């Protein structure tokens, strides 16, 4: 452990002033949604804490999660995370390759046994272990081997958290999530396709600062970022409440920025922090750009029907038409039935034999 410098030392080594360090602590507090009073405590903790060893495993993935993290805004979260942790293995980012790279992983595992953090992105194929290998080792073997000595596992991205797109029907590789393979270690899921970089940073900062995982929901997601739906925090919510909906992507409602519910927005059933943290240095998030939420941070989002199909809609469109046809059919049946009845009564009148006093009885006397 002592071979790692403390975070304070590391930062000073990079020529970061005390003032910048406190700004850094403020950023950490803010991403963990902690009050300002916590900043001195964070500073104190970080000052004396050795950098956390972390091993990043990338399996069946598109590298979008890594891209998301490394292209985040300033002060770069990438930088922030790299300041907090010692990223001992990340085969996309590290300079070493081949045997050297794998040796670094093994060294980190042995040197920090029981204390290192495993960050996973990508799903794990079980259909054929040869579908995805690193240095000749299958993903599932590597995961189990690395996690065996870990303190906790962070599943970054929807693929690692729920299987994601590789898991989508018909799931040709037999892809599964981390939590379906690992049952004996604390797991935290940070879903999203990709996940919000600040959330990754926040969770790691929390783990490093407090030495434990934050509060999680039933899907093992940190509540501080996944406690509310996109819809709950959406700036277009007032339009929803007023019943003002865009009916197509280029109608007047869309131009006025009305609610995208009817265009298939999954905001009401998606738990994530997009509406508050936003993306690209806080520029916007999908709904602000005019497109409904896809629900990428929810399990099976890819298999949950069209992105453009509304979740549930009051009588309108298809249903309105159906109701109309049903009414029309009912009316037609009614009219036909009435006509048949009229005909029957007409026939009965035709069949009427005038009643005279001679036929009032069955057996006239």
């Amino acid at each position: 452990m002592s071979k790692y410098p403390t975070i304070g030392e590391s930062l000073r080594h990079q020529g970061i002033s005390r003032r910048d360090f406190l700004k850094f602590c403020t950023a950490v507090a803010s991403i963990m949604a902690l009050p300002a009073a916590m900043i001195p405590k964070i500073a104190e903790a970080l000052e004396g804490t050795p950098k956390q060893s972390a091993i990043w495993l990338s399996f069946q993935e598109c590298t979008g999660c890594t891209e998301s993290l490394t292209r985040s805004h300033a002060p770069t979260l990438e930088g922030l995370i790299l300041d907090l942790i010692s990223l001992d293995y990340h085969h996309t980012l590290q300079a070493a390759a081949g045997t050297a790279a794998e040796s670094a992983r093994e060294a980190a595992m042995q040197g920090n046994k029981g204390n290192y953090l495993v960050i996973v992105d990508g799903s794990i194929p079980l259909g054929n272990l040869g579908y995805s290998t690193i240095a000749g080792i299958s993903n599932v073997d590597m995961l189990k081997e690395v996690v065996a000595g870990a303190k906790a596992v962070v599943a970054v991205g929807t693929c690692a958290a729920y299987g994601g797109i590789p898991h989508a029907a018909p799931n040709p590789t037999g892809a599964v999530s981390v939590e379906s393979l690992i049952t004996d270690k604390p797991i935290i899921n940070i879903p999203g396709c990709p996940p919000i970089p600040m959330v990754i940073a926040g969770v790691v900062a929390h783990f490093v600062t407090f030495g434990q995982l934050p509060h999680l929901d039933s899907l093992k997601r940190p509540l501080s970022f996944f406690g509310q739906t996109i819809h709950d925090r959406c700036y277009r919510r007032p339009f929803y409440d007023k019943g003002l909906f865009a009916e197509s992507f280029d109608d007047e409602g869309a131009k006025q920025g009305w609610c995208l519910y009817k265009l298939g927005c999954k905001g009401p059933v998606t738990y994530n922090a997009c509406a508050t943290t936003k993306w690209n240095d806080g520029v916007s998030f999908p709904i602000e750009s005019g497109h409904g939420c896809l629900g990428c941070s929810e399990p099976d989002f890819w298999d949950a029907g069209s992105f453009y199909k509304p979740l549930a809609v009051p009588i309108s469109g298809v249903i309105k038409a159906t109701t109309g046809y049903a009414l029309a059919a009912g009316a037609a049946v009614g009219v036909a039935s009435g006509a048949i009845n009229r005909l029957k009564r007409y026939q009965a009148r035709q069949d009427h034999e005038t009643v005279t006093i001679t036929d009032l009885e069955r057996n006239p006397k």
Partner: protein
Amino acid sequence: MSVATFERGYNAFKEQIDAPIASFFSSCVRCGICAEACLFFTETGDPKYTPIYKLEPLRKVWEQEYTLLGKFKALFGLTSKLTDAELAEWKELVYNGCTLCGRCSMVCPVGNDLVYMIRRAREGMVAAGHAPEGLINASKRAITTGSPMGIKLPALQAQINHVEKDTGLKIPVDEVGAEYLVLLSSMEIINFPEYLEAIAKIMQQVGKTWTIASAAFEATNSGIQIGAADIAKELVNRVVTAAEKLQVKTVISPECGHAYTAIRWEGPNLIGRPFTFEVKHILEVLDEFREQGQLKTLGFESARLTFHDPCQLVRRGGVVEQPRHLLKMVASNFVEMSDHGKMNWCCGGGGGHSAIEEAHEIRTQVFQRKKNQLEELQVEKLVTACANCRIVMEEGLESYEMQLPIVGLTEMLAKHLATSNENN
């Protein structure tokens, strides 16, 4: 010669079911409030007399012939077809258990005209041969002799001679161009000749021209009571032909409830065209005379008396205030019954009931209601405006050994005519 058959009856039910009946049956919520309005239920306590239940055969035909659900039910054997045995069973409910008084129609919370339906159901009963013998014979007499009681012209002629002798007034017969054509009921010719006498005196006082038609003196209509529109139509036609031949302006329906319903309300529908003359009940005509100041009376009846509202005249006909106005001219001690006016109780003999011999017992039983109404009031005299009510109530009072004179309102007024008093 044709005879009544079940098939003819079933066909008649089918042809009678019109839009009102279909909507009444679909609207019925089976609340049973009509039971409480029915004399036969209140006096016997037997639920079979619930008015809507009396319509069960007609309802069955409606459901099975004219509703989708009913057709499906019949298809899957969930309902049984109407049988002749059922009709035979219902004969007692439709005729002996109903006077067509229409009280049930007044209370129905969804506005179903129940009595209209029972009247229509009787058409099916007649065609199927399930009409009571008493009404069949009355209908036969009405068609063949001109009167349900078999009274022929000579009998009327004798009565006319008698009245002319008594009053010294001429009774005009077949006078072309008279203003009023006066109709009579057989009951009045036989039992209450005072009515004809009263008319003669009143017309004399008000100075109106009137006549009796020898070809159509009878106002009652057995066809309406038994429920045979074809027979009713023929009887109405006789009056219409006579009235048009004599070119009268107004036909006066006598003190008889069903005669009024037949000629005033069903008449034009039966013959399929509007009348060229007006039809009024004698009380309507008398009240007009009163309003115009032509009817002058002297003196008052001092006896404590009340008025029995004939159902067809008051409830079904809307002649509610006229008898009250007229009574107040000649009665100083007039009191109203409980439930008076349009909600008054039937005498128990309407709708042809009084012609059904075998229904005598139940008629007496349900008269209990009228008896109670009268006992509450402790009156000395009972006034009405329907000869049938009068005869039924006389029988009822006799059965319960009550002493109470009953008079017709017209004859009571005639007794107090200013001129007749001066003459006397």
